[in-house]
């Protein structure tokens, strides 16, 4: 009875909230208040895949859902990144009948790794894809070990794992569970030395021996071997290879894939999505063909025009240095003159003034590659200090804390406008710049 009431009211709230953009979390939260074990009461006609990890889970889950839909399957999916308990509940209750039956061929759930043990308290996915594990929002998450612990509590023995064989940390997740790996061979853009400051696997996650890398794709993702216990990249079933960065073509197990978003982390995300779909029973070649037509969400990456200048907005996760490093990688791919605009806020969810995370971002990679960097937001002067220590000449760094005055400063710069900011601050900066 409680369940039926939760479903009815949740569906109603979803319909009422939709025109106002309040339909992603609230319906699920309300339903869970009425029926706290609602998530355990759904019955699924199809397989359930969960996608988690520190970075790339939204893009990867979106790609998985896209491939499945391209093959004609029906999919329930929390597409807007509503990956906490309420968002997952909303996705399921809107897809379910009043009896709680989810009549979809597949359910694809992006799941926040921190909330995984709560989300999977009452039900379990058939398979779980973990893209990677990095330091991420330490004020909320604690460190990688804390996240690993939470994931271990969430993953039941029956769950099949799809794991990144280039990541020594997440590759070792729940070692007793059945698993398949995907990975990417060394590419022309992989490096012998780690180009990033953030490197969370300098020591072996198994025995604490020093790790030796034969190549890095980015941060601690690459070809690794522990000098003490020999822990090394596992054999992977799905291999990304033959990357042609000029055309955006590469192969997965020999099948051609194309993407316009050619960063190494995205190639790995594509490989992850294809691997997951193949493990769900789809034809590998069809998956490769389908993912080649995928276009990333404009919410995370958007190109537009500001007067006669091209502009691009690349969003990062809050206080997530690896995500910010990826944004830097992406803008370095762009040719021509560019000005980088960076909005630095306080810690979003707590208001603390800490800017420690700026010292985990490799701003040094922008040296000599940009015309100017414009810093804005409450902690803009902390960014100025970070850039000074990185070696940027003072004339290349402009600071305007006040967002309302930013446009005038940016107008005095040259080249493409590349906006790097966090998700939550995107709207306010976009309003100012695109005036």
């Amino acid at each position, binding site marked *: 009875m409680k369940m039926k009431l939760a479903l009815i009211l949740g569906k109603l709230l979803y319909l009422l909230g939709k025109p106002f953009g309040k339909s992603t979390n609230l319906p699920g939260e309300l339903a869970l208040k009425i029926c706290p074990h609602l998530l355990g009461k759904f019955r699924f006609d199809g397989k359930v895949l969960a996608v988690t990890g520190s970075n790339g889970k939204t893009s990867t889950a979106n790609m998985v859902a896209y491939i499945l839909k391209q093959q004609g399957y029906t999919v329930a999916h929390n597409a807007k990144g509503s990956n906490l308990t309420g968002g997952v509940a909303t996705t399921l209750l809107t897809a379910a009948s009043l009896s709680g039956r989810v009549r979809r061929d597949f359910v694809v759930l992006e799941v926040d790794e921190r909330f995984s043990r709560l989300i999977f308290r009452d039900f379990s996915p058939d398979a779980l894809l973990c893209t990677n594990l990095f*330091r991420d929002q*330490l*004020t*909320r*998450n*604690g*460190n*990688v*070990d*804390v996240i690993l612990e939470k994931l271990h509590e969430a993953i039941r023995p029956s769950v099949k794992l799809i794991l990144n064989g280039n990541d020594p940390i997440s590759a070792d997740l729940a070692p007793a569970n059945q698993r398949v790996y995907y990975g990417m061979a060394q590419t022309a853009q992989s490096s012998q030395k780690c180009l990033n*400051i953030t*490197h969370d696997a*300098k*020591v072996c996650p198994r025995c*604490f021996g*020093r790790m030796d890398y034969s190549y890095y794709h980015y941060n601690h993702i690459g070809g690794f071997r522990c000098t003490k216990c020999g822990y090394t990249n596992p054999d992977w079933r799905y291999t990304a290879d033959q990357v042609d960065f000029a055309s955006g073509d590469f192969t997965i197990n020999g099948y051609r894939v194309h993407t316009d978003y050619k960063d190494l982390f995205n190639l790995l995300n594509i490989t992850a999505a294809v691997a997951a779909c193949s493990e769900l029973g789809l034809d590998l070649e069809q998956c490769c063909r389908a993912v080649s037509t995928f276009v990333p969400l404009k919410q995370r990456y958007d190109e537009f025009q500001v007067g006669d200048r091209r502009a691009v907005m690349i969003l990062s996760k809050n206080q997530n240095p690896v995500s910010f490093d990826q944004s830097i990688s992406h803008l370095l791919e762009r040719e021509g003159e560019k000005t980088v605009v960076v909005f630095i806020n306080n810690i979003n969810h*707590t208001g*603390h*003034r*800490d800017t*420690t*995370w*700026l*010292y*985990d971002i490799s701003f040094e990679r922008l040296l000599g590659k940009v015309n100017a960097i414009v810093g804005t937001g*409450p*902690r803009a*002067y*902390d960014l*100025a*200090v*970070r850039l*000074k*220590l990185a070696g940027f000449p003072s004339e290349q760094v402009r600071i305007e*804390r006040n967002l309302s005055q930013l446009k005038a400063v940016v107008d005095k710069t040259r080249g493409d406008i590349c906006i790097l900011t966090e998700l939550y601050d995107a709207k306010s900066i976009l309003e100012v710049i695109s005036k």
Partner: protein
Amino acid sequence: MNPISILWLYDDLLDLYGDWGNLLAVTKGLDAMEIPWHIDHKSLGDETDFSQYQMVYLGPGKARNLAQAAKDFVQKKKQVLDAVEQDVLFLATGNSRLLFGKSFTGADGETLPGIGLFDYTGEETGNVFVSDVVAYPVFAPQTASYGFINRTAHIHGNTRDPLFAVSYGAGDGQETPAQQEGNLYRNFFGTWQLGPVLVKNPVFLKEVLRRLTGERFRDWNTTAEELALKLTLSEILK
């Protein structure tokens, strides 16, 4: 000119959160004074002659990593204590402070011995606790500093040689407003504040460099750092 030798101890294990910024600040300061420097990295099992270094840095780490470091560090107890008495400059940020107390108890209940430079003991809580901190260092009691605490442990019984008088936020002990925080003994600086605490506080950085360089110390321009600090403090203390 003799270079300043710096040791980043357990750089591979204890590297949690922007801690590299402290060495960046120190080396940029040395560059400004045109004093050469070099940084060595040592970790588990490495032979370490502390008398070769003018500065030793330890940052915070994950609980499992800290436990490994503790088992190695306690074997270096005599050399470290001798180095402290011989005025080698130590900077220990975040939970690496736990290595310098009597002992600390991890989340799994295992108690690991520290080197006993101080009488305090530590205890892992397993809960993430964060706090902005405004505090006055004992070497510049009129100068407010800003720091950030992000920890899953606390310290009991730290009764001597405080580094900071706290005016806002948490310090040693429980997760409540505190009177004092950290330790300064000879040239040993220890604080719960983590990340680039020397970048955030130019007065702290200059005190460290003054002690490190002696007569070779020359002041340099830190206007940008001072402005960033002033804005942060004005927001917290308004």
